[in-house]
């Protein structure tokens, strides 16, 4: 069974059957990753371009590993900042690179809509690796995979995303997918970090972190962007840590069954205390491993369909 689209632009437009197919396929690749020889010949002869217009270490590494394990030829292009400043349009920049005839493009960009824009002038299959504050579908899928690996289907589970929701593509992709899969989704953070009309996506808002811990099965904790937020959405990091930070004491007092996810990199002592980041409630490193499997699944499904 193939995916219904030749691209993975976001989870807002991805049908639930496709989401399930990706998660199921990821299981197979998760097993491959446990083998002594982790390489399969699935994408032999296909070229994948990792087009990163924004600094990223983890996501790029994860994709690259997934591509190499599927035996694809891998080309990397990284450039941060806008093409505008260099007097070259984005379209020119990209046209230059894709004239090399690539089959799949994995793209990250600080402007929302860039993956969609790319589909208009290339024939390659596009995978969104994060566009602005819009979507980060592979991250959400690996989050969901990791939750289900630990506690079973997300259907009916209470999952809360904690942090700067307004600036988070991880939050948005998680909300879209989790809602489709039947989870009860909520968000927690100061109101200054909530995008307008977030309730219309069918999520509940918490402003009390203790309550969020007590009433949910899973917390997906976002990284607080130190540069961005100091002085605008929150008074300072100390206040955030004191009122929204997650530490072992809060967990033990409110809900010892909670599962903690974090997309990384962690600001230790801000959104997560070290005792939580290294403690028994979190599955942060599983997320990293599963990320490779989920990305292999997506590359495989898109790469092998016409």
């Amino acid at each position: 069974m193939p995916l219904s689209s030749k691209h993975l632009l976001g989870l807002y437009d991805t049908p639930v059957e496709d989401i399930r197919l990706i998660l199921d396929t990821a299981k197979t690749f998760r097993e491959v990753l446990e083998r002594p020889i982790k390489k399969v010949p699935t994408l032999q002869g296909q070229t994948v371009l990792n087009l990163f217009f924004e600094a990223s270490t983890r996501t790029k590494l994860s994709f690259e590993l997934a591509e190499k394990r599927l035996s694809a030829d891998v080309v990397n292009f990284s450039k941060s900042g806008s093409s505008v400043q260099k007097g070259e349009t984005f379209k020119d920049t990209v046209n230059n690179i894709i004239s090399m005839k690539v089959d799949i493009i994995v793209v990250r960009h600080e402007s929302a809509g860039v993956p969609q824009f790319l589909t208009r002038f290339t024939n390659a299959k596009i995978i969104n690796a994060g566009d602005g504050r819009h979507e980060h579908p592979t991250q959400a899928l690996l989050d969901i995979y990791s939750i289900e690996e630990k506690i079973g289907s997300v259907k009916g589970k209470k999952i809360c995303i904690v942090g700067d929701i307004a600036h988070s593509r991880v939050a948005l992709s998680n909300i879209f997918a989790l809602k489709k899969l039947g989870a009860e989704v909520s968000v927690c953070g100061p109101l200054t970090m909530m995008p307008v009309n977030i309730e219309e996506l069918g999520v509940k808002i918490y402003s009390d972190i203790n309550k969020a811990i007590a009433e949910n099965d899973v917390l997906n904790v976002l990284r607080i962007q130190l540069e961005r937020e100091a002085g605008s959405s929150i008074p300072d990091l100390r206040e955030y840590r004191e009122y929204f930070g997650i530490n072992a004491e809060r967990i033990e007092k409110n809900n010892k069954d909670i599962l903690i996810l974090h997309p990384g990199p962690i600001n230790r002592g801000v959104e997560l205390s070290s005792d939580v980041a290294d403690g028994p409630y979190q599955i942060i490193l599983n997320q990293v491993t599963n990320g490779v499997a989920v990305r292999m699944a997506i590359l495989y499904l898109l790469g092998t369909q016409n």
Partner: protein
Amino acid sequence: MKVLLQNLQIFDPQGIQNEKKDLLLEDGIIVKISDSIPIDSGVEKFDFEGAICSPGFFDMHVHLREPGREDEETVLSGATAAAAGGITEIACMPNTTPTIDNAGMVDFIKQKAKGHLVNVHVIAAATKDRKGEYISPMYELKESGAVGFSDDGVSIKNAFILRKAMEYSKMLELPIIEHCEDESLAGGAMNESEVSTKLGLPPVPSVAEDLIVMRDILMAEYLDASVHIAHISTKNAVEMVRQAKSRGVKVTAEVTPHHFTLTQDSLYSYDTNFKMNPPLRSKEDVAAILEGLKDGTIDVIASDHAPHSPEEKDYEFIYAPNGIIGLETIVGLTLSDLYNKKILSLEKVIEKLVVNPRKILNLPLPKIAEGEKANLSIFNPDLVWTVDANKLKSKSRNTPFDKRIITGKALAAINNGKMFFEDEFISLSA
């Protein structure tokens, strides 16, 4: 040279209304108006059966890019785009490079436009270099021909300088035209809404507009000065203008066709031709705008014609510049979406495209009468056509209305002894 325009349904707010007439022009002057004028030899005739003729349309919010970005639009290409859109007079905004903030610059634009069918009026900057620090030399600007003052692109920076600008221009009896947007809330790529949340685009809230509309109304009221709100786009702003008018405040407002035809839902395509400032708003805002047009709260329809090169519109969404071209679609969209949908009567359409812009800028309203210079727009409200961006006369192509089917079309513009008809200029003088 004599030209006979046949079978025109005349609508002159100061004269003949809803009567079918023939018009005989000689060297660009209306020499005879009659039910039927026999064709003499040597007279070129144009049969306009089914079309309406009004005094020339006036678009009071146009960005010509000269000087600075002549690759996007020049005074002449913009004026020709206006003629092709059925418009005989435009007022251009001062945000060129350099800024139109001195008499020499006003003169430069005027010189460029000299001899064209379209009268190009100049709105000069309200403050020097539109920086909001010192008011511009308004006296001198008026003497050189400026018809109003605006820092369009941005609001006049703060209440103190706004006050000075309003007082000074009040003395000169010229309006202040305000782009209303609170600077500290500005900078987003679309209207803040559930759609911006879903699309992950940095939002600009409607309250950014509302705050400045409120400030400007209160200041105009306090000083008994006048202010014209450019491209109004929010429900609250419309309501504030309505209430202010009922208190007798000298406030007027304009709306663009894109703000009464499109909503933020268009942004789902991430097409940069839907990126403008003010941004496309919600359905509720559009409904309030239609109400405001109906009850007269909104006085004027203006295009906010803003040419940008294709290169710039190919930038990533958050970097692409704001604005769309509109001179060649404003009349069609008004007829299609307001007149034909029975939002506005013909009389009201003429008020908003012909009468009120001139009233606000204190310019004479042309008459359709024997002995008068012909300054006319001819349009067919029933003609169905499809916009083709590649065929527009503007140097730029950034329109969200490409391929749109429109009912109602401008057919001809006549002014200054020239007629623009079927894609070309025809000289009407000897």
